Each structure stands twice: as C-alpha cells, then as structure tokens.
C-alpha cells in the first residue's frame, strides 16, 4: 500500500480512501453473504432450476427439461389461481391488522403507567408458542361439544359448531391465529424504534405547538418508518409463504376454502410427487414477493 508514491494528487488520496473503504465494506458483508450463498442460495438455485423440469419426488435424480410447460399449466390450474388469490387476500388482511394492532399496542406499552413492565414482559408470550401447540389450542377452543368457545356460545343461545370445519369461519380463524401470534412482535419492534427517538424532538415539536396526535404523526411515524417497513415486509413474506398454520389446522379445507399457495405446493410435492410443478409455483411466489419488496422499498425510500 505504501508503495504508492507520496506525490499522488488529492484525487489519488480520495481514490485510495474509496478503495479501502469499499474494501472494508465488502469484508464486513462477506461472512453473512457466504453463509447465505452456500447454505441456502445454492438449494434455491436448484429449486428454481427444477421449475423448468418434470421431476418426481419418488425419483428426483431423473428429471426431464420441459421448458415453460409447468408455467403454462399454472395458467389453466384453477386450484392454483384460487390459492393465489386467497394467499394475497390473507396476506393483505393479516398484515394490515397486525400492523395497526401492533402499533396500537406499542403506543400503550410506551406509556409509563405503573405495572406496564409486566405487560411488556408478557407481551411476547403468544409469539413463543410453537405453532403446533397454538393450532392445538385453537382447535380445542372451537371444538364441538367441549370447546370453551362453543360452551360460551351455547350458553348464550348462539349457534355452535366446529368452526374450523365451516368455510367462512375457517378462513377467519386462520387470520385470527396469524394476528394473535405476531401482533406482539410488531409491538416490540415498533416500541424499540420509538425508544430510539431522541426526546428533544418531542420537546421541539411541543414547543412548536404540536399536540399528541401531531407529534405522533410528524415525529413518531417518520422515525419508525424503517422499522415499520421491515416488519411489514417480514410479515408479508412470512404470511405469504406460511405453511404450518393452515396445514395443521384445516389442511387447506373445508372444500379448499383455506387452501393457500404453500399448502398447495406441499401437496404437489409430497402428495402428487410433482416436484417440478411445485417448484414452478414456488418461483411464482418468489417473483411476487421480490416485486412487492422492491417496489415497496423504493416507494418508502422515495418518500
């Protein structure tokens, strides 16, 4: 490095800084990149490759290149289209509810009322329950005959049923499980974001005559916009590709009313043995998510 002659111009110095800075930036990002590239990047590339092949789960080594045939089949597959629409709908509803409720919870958890620490500590409890246990609990709650929800409904003289077995309610229950599970995580992440906002900014806004709502809108919201965006993208992705919540509770039924892309992919791969076709659905999911993320991030940073 010091072999460079000292007579270099200012531009040379800057170039050197640029070089070393860039170099340092790369070095720091390399460990994460390498782990991802090796452990998951490679399998993903193989997965994408599969989408252009016909391959059977029972004999994955023998695969045949069929070009875009899998994708053309998707255009005529009404079950796929139904699942796609349902997945988008589910994701939209779930993430909106989660964000609004999570933001609300973050705001009340921020208040310094006596005992709020206890609420804060308890808040994550729904998020740490294994999905299988959550599903078991919810199934039990709505069990026909002895589920608490139905006992209460029965006592109130209302209709009872195994609600996971009814078309509309099954979908609503899936939404409720998603919301129930993840709202606290939004709340905590947003709360952490709010905590990092310097108090001076609130003081300044207050001096400017801003009320509580205005302070929320012009100080709090902009300051948590990055965290908000991350939480939203994280959960859009999570909800969009979520498999176990639906699979364990309804299996995609009744009558396909809760069938989402992930359960459909699973059935294609592990029941129909259609690895290639399943992979093509996965590629569609990947494209939708990528487009969503890029557009959303660009939009947010443009703001």
């Amino acid at each position, binding site marked *: 490095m010091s072999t460079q002659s000292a007579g270099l111009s200012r531009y040379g110095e800057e170039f050197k800084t640029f070089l070393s800075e860039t170099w340092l930036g790369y070095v720091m990002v390399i460990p994460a990149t390498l*782990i991802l590239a090796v452990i998951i990047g490679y399998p993903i590339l193989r997965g994408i490759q599969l989408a252009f092949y016909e391959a059977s789960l029972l004999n994955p080594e023998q695969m045949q290149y069929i070009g875009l045939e899998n994708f053309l089949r998707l255009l005529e597959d009404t079950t796929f289209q139904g699942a796609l629409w349902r997945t988008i709908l589910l994701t939209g509803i779930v993430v909106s509810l989660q964000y609004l409720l999570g933001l609300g919870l973050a705001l009340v958890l921020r208040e310094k009322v006596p005992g709020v620490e206890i609420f804060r500590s308890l808040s994550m409890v729904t998020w740490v329950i294994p999905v299988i246990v959550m599903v078991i609990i919810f199934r039990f709650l709505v069990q026909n005959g002895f589920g608490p929800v139905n006992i209460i409904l029965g006592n109130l003289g209302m209709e009872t049923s195994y609600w996971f077995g009814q078309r509309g309610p099954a979908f609503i229950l899936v939404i409720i499980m998603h919301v129930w599970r993840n709202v606290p*995580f939004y709340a*905590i992440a947003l709360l952490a974001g709010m905590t990092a906002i310097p108090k001076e900014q609130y003081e300044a806004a207050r001096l400017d005559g801003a009320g509580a709502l205005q302070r929320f809108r012009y100080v709090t919201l902009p300051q948590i916009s990055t965290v908000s965006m991350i939480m939203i993208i994280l959960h859009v992705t999570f909800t969009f590709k979520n498999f176990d919540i639906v699979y364990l509770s309804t299996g995609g039924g009744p009558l396909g009313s809760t069938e989402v892309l992930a359960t459909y992919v699973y059935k294609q791969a592990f029941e129909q043995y259609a690895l290639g076709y399943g992979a093509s659905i996965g590629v569609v999911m990947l494209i939708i998510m990528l487009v969503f993320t890029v557009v959303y991030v660009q939009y947010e940073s443009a703001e």
Partner: protein
Amino acid sequence: MANTDDASTGVVQRIDAWLDEDMSVRRAGIVYVVLGLYFAFLLLPIVYMLLASFTSQDFLFSPELIPSLSDLTINNYVSVLTIGEFQRYFVNSTIIAVATTALVLTVGILAGYSMSRFEYPGRRGLLYAFLSTQMLPIVLILIPFFLLMYDLNLIDSHLGIVVAHSVIGIPLGTWLLKGYIDDIPESLDEAAMMDGGSRFDVLVRIIIPLSMPGIAVAGFYTFILSWNDFLLVSILSQTEATRTLPFGLQLFQAQNAVAWNLLITAAIITMVPVVLLFALAQKWVVEGLASGGMKGM
C-alpha cells in the same frame, strides 16, 4: 413541519387539547383499558393452556368451562420434567438457540454496519438478495438443501442446525440491524473518526451501544426463531442426540393418540425460559436505553 393544511387539523387539535388536559389519571385509565383489551385477546388462550396443564385429560374433554378444585393437579409437570429425553431436548434447544443468536448477531452487525455506512456497488442488490432467500417455501428446496447439508457433513449435528437456523435469521437480522443503524446520526461516526478512531472503533464505541434495542430485537427474534423451529430440525435431525424441544413434543403424540395435557404442559415449560429471557431483555433495552443509553455519547 408541524403545520398542515389538513381539514382534519381542527379535530386533531380538539382531541389533543382534551388529551393534554388533566393527563395522568385519565390517560392512565385509557391505557389500562386498552391494555386490558389487548391482553384479554392475547392471554385468554394461554390462560386456557395454563388451566389445561394443571388438570387431567378428563377436564379437557368435558363440557365444563372452569375446572373444579378436585380437577387440579401438578402431575403433568412432574411427569414432563422427569422425562430424560425432555431434559436432553431442553439442553439441545438452548445450545442451538444461543449459538445461532451469537452467529447471526455477529455476522448481522457487521453486514448491517457495512450496508448502512459504506458505499459500494451492489449494496442494495445484496440486501435484496439476502431477503429473497426467505421468499421460497422451504418444502420446495428440501431435497437440494438436505443433499447439500449431507455433503457438508452437517446432518444430525448441532453445528448443522445452527447454520441452518442462521440462514433463516441472517437476512432479517441484518436488515433489522441496518435499519436501526441507519437511524443513528452519521455525524456521531464522523465525530469519532475526527478523534482518530478507526471504522472498527466506531462500530464498537458508537454503533453497537446505540443500536442496542435493535440488537436486542434481532437477537431475540433469532433466538425465538431457532428455539421454535420445527421444519429444519425435522430435516436435519436423524437421532435423539440433536432433537430440540418443538420437535421433541412428539414425545407426547403417538400414532392414534395424543396426551394433550402433557403436550400442553411441555409447551408451557418450553415457553417459560423464553418469556423470562424476554422480560430481562426488554427491561434492559426499553428502560435502559431511554435513560442511560443516550447519555453515553
């Protein structure tokens, strides 16, 4: 910045005036009511779980809402806690989750710092690439993933599970950390570097302390992700030696029968350390930062 031409401004100010008025008592009242509503929604199913863990299976299948005193028992806890395998799974879960968290935070802070503070070609693309690894359902890449891990000799080992969990934790962890680091004013970096500090000093003395809430959130996120993972462990674990708790819940399920009360009890025991950990972390983060953290600069 506080002035708008919104038509709603009038309403907003009226509400503000009302809120700002006599404060404390009234406001606290509202906060408690809202908290009450939230926690009724969040905790009722958990309360039901707790009840179930203290009763026999008979109660669960009865059309009763509240167990009678004679239904209550701590037998479930005694049974679950004395199972040798359960203790082993507990140890495995702890080792794996701690190692995963350490790994993800280490590489995540470095990557997040790099993405936040350094300019280099492909920076944004890289972030998208990170995130895109999370967008395929794992069932699809199951076979190539398994074969790769086999070739890397990472099947049925703690290390393999740690690496696999990290892969799920790194993209979001990195992004989350980058987001929090972005919020730290760059003027602080510059000031430190003026004093002769290197980039590394900035990282250790400025970035890490100031992004503690983010580190805690990312760390907690990773810990939970690893602690709760079922799918990856189910793919990579071949013997009892590498099982973790969620996968170990199978102990209580047989082909045609489930010991619901033991299963739920085990789930509660699984939850306890995480809730405790979170209680500690949040106190340290949320309380600590607001008071002490910012003064350090």
